[in-house]
C-alpha cells in the first residue's frame, strides 16, 4: 500500500509550523530568512503531493516557479540584509524597529 497523500500533507504542515516558529522565535535575521525558506519548502512538498494525487503536472510546474521566485527572493533579501548590516552593524531583528509609530 502506498503512502496516502494525507500523510505527506500532514508532514508538510508540521514542517510549515516549525518554519513559522523559527520566524517568530529567532532574532538573527539570517536565521529568520532560512526559516522562511523552510516554510516555502513545506509548501512545495504539499504541491507535489497533490500533483501526484491528481495525476496532474500543474503542481510540479508551480513548484518550479516557486523555486525560481525563492531564488530571486533570497538574492534580493540577502542583499538588503547586507546593506542594512552596513548601516547598523547588527543582525538583531529586535533592533531594526524604526518602522513604527
Amino acid at each position, binding site marked *: 500500500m502506498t503512502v496516502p497523500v494525507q500523510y505527506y500533507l500532514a508532514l508538510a504542515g508540521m514542517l510549515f509550523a516549525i518554519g513559522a516558529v523559527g520566524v*517568530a522565535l529567532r*532574532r538573527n535575521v539570517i536565521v529568520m530568512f532560512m526559516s522562511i525558506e523552510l516554510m516555502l519548502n513545506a509548501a512545495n512538498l504539499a504541491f507535489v503531493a497533490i500533483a501526484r494525487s491528481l495525476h496532474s503536472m500543474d503542481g510540479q510546474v508551480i513548484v518550479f516557479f516557486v523555486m525560481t521566485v525563492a531564488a530571486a527572493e533570497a538574492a534580493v533579501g540577502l542583499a538588503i540584509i547586507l546593506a542594512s548590516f552596513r548601516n547598523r552593524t547588527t543582525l538583531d*531583528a*529586535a533592533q*531594526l*524597529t524604526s518602522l513604527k509609530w
Partner: protein
Amino acid sequence: MVNTALLRWIILCPLVGVLFHAFVAPRLSRRSSSLVGPAMVGAAFAIALVAFKHLWGLEEGGALVDRMFSWIAVGHVQVAAGLRFDALSGVMTLIVTGVGFLIHVYSTGYMEHDEDSVRFFLYLNLFMLAMLLLVLGDSILLFFVGWEGVGLCSYLLIGFWYEKNENADAGKKAFIVNRIGDAGFLLGVMLLFWSLGAKGVWTLDFAEFRAHSDAISPALATAVGLLLFVGATGKSAQIPLYVWLPDAMAGPTPVSALIHAATMVTAGVYMIARMSFLYALSPTALHVVAAIGATTALFAATIGLVQNDIKKVLAYSTVSQLGYMFLAMGVGAYAVGIFHLMTHAFFKGLLFLGAGSVIHGMGGEQDIRKMGGLRAKMPITFWTFAIACCAISGVPLFSGFFSKDAILFQAFASEYGHPALWAIGVFAAMLTAFYMFRLLFLTFFGECRADHHTAEHAHESPPAMTLPLAVLAVLSIVGGYVGLPDRWLWGDRFSEFLAPVLPVQGHEQHSAGLETALMAVSILAAAAGIALAYLFYVRSPEIPGRLSARFRGAYDALLNKYWVDELYGATAVGGTFWLADALWRFVDVTIIDGTVNGIGRVIQLQSSLWRRLQTGNVQHYALTFLGGVILVIGYFLLH
C-alpha cells in the same frame, strides 16, 4: 361701481419709490431721489383722496375692499392679502400720506447737504409702504407685517448716521424694546386665533373677528386685549416700554417728526381702535389701558419740564400725548382718541419740523440753553412753532383744544371713566402748557445765548422746509373743527363719520353745564401753565435756577428721567446678560464643548492604546500572522 383695485396703488406707489431708490437712484443724481421720494408719497395721497371720495358716496358702514391675492391657504385657514378702506382706515391713510408727503418735501431741504440722502429717501419710502400696509391691512396678519416693517424702518432711520455709536445704539434699543412688546402682541394674536379656532372659526381677518365677537368670552377678551396692549406699549411708547423714544431722537429730525410723532407711534392707538369690538367685551382691559395712558401722560410731562435738548422735550411730550390717546381709548371714546391722533399729527409734526428748522439754522445746536432771540432771525419758524405750541397746550379755538378737551370730558363722564383720571389729565395738561411755552420762550425770546459765530449765521430755512411748516400750521388751527363739542355749530362730525366702525361707548346724557364747567377748568389749567412759563422764562429768569437749587433731589430725579434706564439696565438687561453668560458657561462650554472634546479625547486615548501594536518588530507581526492562521485553520477543522 368703483374699481377697488385702485387701493393697491396706494401701497404700490411707495413700493415703486423703494425700488427706484434702491436700484436706479444710485446711478442718477441725488436730486432725482429728492424728486421721486416725495412724488410717490404725493401720488399715494392723491389716490387716497380719490378713494375717500368714493367712500363718502357709500352708505354708512361701507368700505372699499381690495382682495389682492390669496396668501395663506392651509387646511381651515384661508388668509387673503387684502386692503380695507373703511372710515377708520380712510382717515388714517389720509393722515399718513398727507403728513408724510409734507415731511418728505421738508426732507428734501433738510437732507440737501447730506451725501447719503438717497438711502434716506429709500428708508422713508419703505416706511410709508409698511405704515400703509399696517393701516390698510384687512387681516391682523397683514397688519402685523406692517407693524414689524415700521419697526424695522424705525431702526434703520434712527441709526441713519450710523458712524456714531450712540445713534446705532439708539436704533438697537428701539428695535429690541419694540420686540419685547411684539412678543406680547403675537401671544395675543395666537391666543385669539386658537380660541376662535377651537370653536370652529378659523380666521385672521378683522371683519370676521368682529362678526364672530359673540364667540369671544370676557375672560378671553381680557387676556387678548391685555396681550395686544403690551405690544401697543412697545410700539406707542407707554409705560413700561417707552424708554426707546427719547433715545430715538438721535435720528434726523424729519424721522422724529414722521415716525415718532405723527405715524408709527400711533399704530398702537390704531390697533385698539381696530379691535375696539374686543375691548368692548372687557372692561378690565379698558381700565388698564386708561390707567396706563393717564399715568404715562403725567409721568412723561414731569420729565419734559426740565429737559434741555429741544428734541428731548418734544419726545417726552409725544409720550405724554400718546398717553392721552390711550386714556381716550381706555374710557371707550375710540373716535375721540383717533381725533386727537389726527390733531397731534398736525401740531407735533409741526413742532418737530420747526425744531429741525431751528437746529438747521443754528448749525446743529440742540441745547435750548444755548438758543434765544431767534424770533427775529427765523420769523416763519417762530410763528408756526408758536401756533403749534398753542395747539398742543389746548388754547381755545386751536385744534388741540377740541381734541384734548373731548378726551378730558370723556375721562370724567364716560361709563368707563373716573374723576381721578380726569384730574390727572388736567394736571398733565397744565404741565404740558408750561413746558411747551418754556421751550418757546427759551428758544425764540430774549438774548441769543449762543456763541458769536453761530448767532451770526443763524438763518431762516429754505422754502422746501418752511412751506410744509406753513401748511401744518394752518391744519393745526382748522384741523380741530371737524370735531366740535356736541352743542357747538355742527357738532362732532368726526365721531359721527367714524361711528359705524367705532361705536361710541359709554355715552350718556350729560348736562351742558357739566361740559362747559370742565372746559373752563382745562382752559384755566392751560392759562396757568402758560403764565407760569412766562413768569419763569421771560419776566424773572432767575427763578428756575433758584427752584432747581432748592429742590435739588426732585430736580435731579426729573432730569435723570427717574433713572428708569439705569433700572432697566441693571435688571432686565443685566439679567439677560447674566443668563446668557450662565448658559454659555454651563451649556456651551461644559456640556457641548465637553462632549465634543470628550469624544476627541476618547479617540485619542484608545488610539494611543492601539498604537502600541506597531512595535516595528517583525517578529511580533509574524506571531500575529501565526495566530490568524491558527484561527483560520481551526475554523476549517471544526466544519
